């Protein structure tokens, strides 16, 4: 057996004899399993609830009686953001965003009823998920178990004895690192069960899981290297513990929050009131369909008349009210998209700032890549909102087209007692409208988006290994 493995085995044997260490590992194991089970149950529960709501909303839409198409524009539809299988590992921002949306004509509503507004203050203490256990709890346990690996030997003078026996510094460091890596693997394994549980799920793809597993593996390896590094550089094990705990607190607790706060202070977001007022202002500048003298709509009307070779709207083969509704929706929707794009770009700039700070703290990079690969980051929410808007627009325009083609202009402006009946189109038409289907991004796309974060974590690992190599050369020299 090589010297390196002997040293590692010796270290592990010492660890196993340490009752506190065993209790710590057992607690972490239980905590992780609890996190896996609760995140799993939560994801299943939410996915099931949302799909039930979505079906109910679709059934309600389909069951609407004969109606004027414009009534259906206002009746609108409710959609729910589905929750991907990887959310059982890292739910990301799911609890912090609204997950249901009411889609109707002329308006772009917010996504409402996020968990964060339905939960107690406790949700702000952080959520218990396999991802957070690996990000925050597992490194601290590793620190407690490993801070003394080299400092202890230095402190007690056993390091010198080992070296007198002809053991090389490199072998000592590698042996200790090996022992720490075994502990890190033991700490990380149960959370990986959360990933394994996801594999069988429909819609789960392998690539993001590979990225996630690699990233967390590299992250825990990074902590093992950093622990060995600090333990090699200080003379007393207590100092190693303090330095490591401080590093942990700064990187996992302090920097993520500080980064978020700095980003939100650096790039302020426009609030909804200002956005809505600005959209209304832009819309007025474009044209007012209610104003008979409005230049935009006068020109629009003329273009419609020209297209059909008619002199009056009454002579058009289509219902002019429906045509105007389509034009109005086109105008409002283009503004919604523009302003939503601006808001999203501002948020993307905020996240880019956080990612920059993430170069200083691998935890930030890991959190962000983990959410990205799981499809539960801001981009995932943005995908939902953009698809929702596209669906809303298509639905409203389809209903407007029904008004233009299937309700005559004469009926539409009539006010006699029977007119209401004549304005309605058959209920069968609603059933022909397909429901909202969220198109999840491909596994490859998610994995690719997570690669920059992975590069940061791996970069940290390389740097730490290099530093450890340097420290190993000076080991015991102080």
């Amino acid at each position, binding site marked *: 057996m090589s010297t390196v493995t002997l040293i590692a085995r010796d270290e592990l044997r010492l660890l196993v004899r340490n009752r*506190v260490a065993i209790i710590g590992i057992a607690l972490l194991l239980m905590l992780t399993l609890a996190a896996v089970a*609760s995140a799993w149950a*939560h994801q299943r529960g939410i996915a099931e609830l949302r799909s039930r709501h979505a079906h109910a909303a679709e059934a309600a839409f389909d069951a609407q*009686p004969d*109606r004027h198409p414009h009534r259906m524009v*206002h*009746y609108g539809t*409710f959609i*729910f953001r589905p929750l991907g299988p990887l959310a059982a590992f890292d739910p*990301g921002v799911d609890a*912090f*965003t609204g997950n*249901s949306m*009411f889609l109707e004509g002329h308006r772009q509503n*917010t*996504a*409402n009823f*996020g968990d*964060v*507004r*339905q*939960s*107690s*203050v*406790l*949700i*702000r*203490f*952080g959520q*218990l998920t396999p991802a957070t256990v690996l990000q925050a709890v597992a490194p*601290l346990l590793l620190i407690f178990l490993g*801070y003394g690996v080299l400092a202890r030997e230095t402190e007690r003078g056993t390091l010198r004895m080992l070296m007198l026996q002809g053991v090389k510094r490199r072998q000592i460091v590698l042996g200790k690192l090996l022992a720490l890596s075994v502990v890190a693997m033991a700490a990380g394994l149960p959370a990986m069960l959360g990933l394994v549980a996801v594999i069988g799920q429909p819609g789960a793809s392998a690539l993001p899981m590979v990225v996630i597993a690699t990233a967390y593996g590299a992250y825990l390896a990074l902590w093992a290297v950093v622990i060995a590094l600090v333990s090699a550089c200080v003379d007393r*094990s*207590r100092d190693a513990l303090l330095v490591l*705990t*401080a590093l942990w607190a700064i990187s996992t*607790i302090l920097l993520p*929050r500080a*980064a*978020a*706060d*700095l*980003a*939100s*202070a650096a790039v*302020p*977001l426009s*609030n*909804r*009131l*200002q*956005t809505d*007022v600005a959209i209304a202002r832009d819309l007025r500048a474009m044209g007012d369909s209610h104003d008979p003298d409005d230049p935009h709509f006068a020109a629009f009307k003329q273009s419609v008349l020209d297209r059909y070779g008619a002199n009056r709207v009454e002579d058009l083969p289509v219902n002019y009210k429906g045509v105007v509704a389509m034009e109005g929706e086109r105008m409002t929707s283009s503004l919604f998209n523009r302003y939503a794009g601006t808001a999203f770009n501002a*948020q993307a700039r*905020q996240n880019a700032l*956080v990612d920059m700070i993430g170069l200083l703290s691998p935890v930030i990079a890991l959190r*962000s890549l983990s*959410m990205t690969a799981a499809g539960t980051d*801001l981009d995932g929410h943005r995908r939902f909102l953009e698809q929702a808007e596209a669906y809303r627009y298509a639905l409203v325009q389809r209903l407007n087209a029904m008004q233009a083609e299937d309700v005559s202009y004469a009926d539409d402006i009539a*006010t006699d007692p029977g007119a209401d009946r004549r304005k309605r189109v058959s209920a069968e038409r609603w059933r022909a409208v397909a429901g909202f289907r969220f198109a999840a991004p491909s596994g490859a796309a998610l994995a690719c988006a997570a690669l920059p974060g992975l590069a940061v974590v791996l970069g940290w690992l390389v740097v730490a290994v290099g530093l450890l190599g340097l420290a190993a050369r000076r080991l015991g020299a102080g």
Partner: protein
Amino acid sequence: MMLLMHELRLLSRQRLPVIALALLALLTVIALALGTAEVKRQREAIAAIWTAHAEDIGAVADHVELSHDAGSAAYYSFHPTWDAPSRLAFAALGMRDVSPYILRVRALGLEAQIYDGDTFNPELALAGRFDFAFVLVFLAPLFVIALFHDLVSGEQEAGRGRLLEALSGGGRTLWRRRGALRLVLLWAALGLPFTLAAAMNGAGAAATLIVLAVVLAYLLFWVVLAAWVNQLRWSSAANAATLASAWLLLVLVIPALANVAINMAVPIHQGAEIALAQREEVNRAWDIPREDTMRRFYARHPEWSGSAPLGPEFHYKWYLAFHQNGDESVASRVHDYRNSLEARDRAARALGWLLPSVGVQSLLMRMARTDLSAQLRYQDRIRVFHRRLRTFYYGYLFEDRPFSRGDFGRAPRFGGDT
């Protein structure tokens, strides 16, 4: 006093305590500055409401002038409401980053409007705010651990332990004196910047004193815990590891576990169900005789029942009546929803009696009026305001009075700060 000065001199020669205290003071100052800036930003956003609102209402007035129809005015006019940050909000921003503090409402169905949110970046909200409450609840205990884990064991490891205990005025008295000094210094690192920020924000003496007392009590809890661990006479490293584990459990793990437990114990019928039911009720009105709608409305609101019967043409009083019917049809669901929210909140606050971290956080948020009950009270104020809006427009609609430009100025205004 002499002895204390001496201890202070001893402390000032040690690297770790000096760095730790300076760092804590620095982090406190940063958190207070960020919190103050955020509150200022929120106040400015609220102050900017009226310019935007005037522009918006001006355009609606131009449009309504063509018809003088109060229904059009009611339909197109959005009325701003806001929840101004309290004088203490800078210290604990609480839920103000995820719940709207500005919301515009129309005189239509309120249940389709009141749950709307504002724009925020969920990834930043997930990380949480870097405010004074965070520094106190999450970070301060770590500094207590850094300063107290070797209070006794450090001297023992240096070989002075027995000597110090044998001295007259040594032993317990000595540890108490040293402990008290460190505690007071930690308190000052948090409390002095806070007092300054509280004065600048006009938080008031009473609130400031209470927060200072809370800070001291919370620090004391961790000091007592550290003293107890010191008593076990383990090594400094074992003390530090034990205390850090206690921190992990009390600040991260147990609150997260409790959150899961509370959410399972108090299921919430999703608010989305209210929105779905209200919309069904509102839209059904187009398919039932309009007289049924009006009968139901008048039965609940006889004060308007003297209004002229509906003609064959569209009339906004029918439209607004079925919107109000829709709201009223989900009143019991709304009540249940709110009760469940409050039950979750109560459970979390009850936990605060056991867990100082949760207790301090929720106490600060309660004092700063940034917690769930503050959000619910804001919703209550919106409901009251919305009732006034309805009464205002109904006065024109049900009595068929024309609505002119001047009438826009007579619309009720939200009294946000009352």
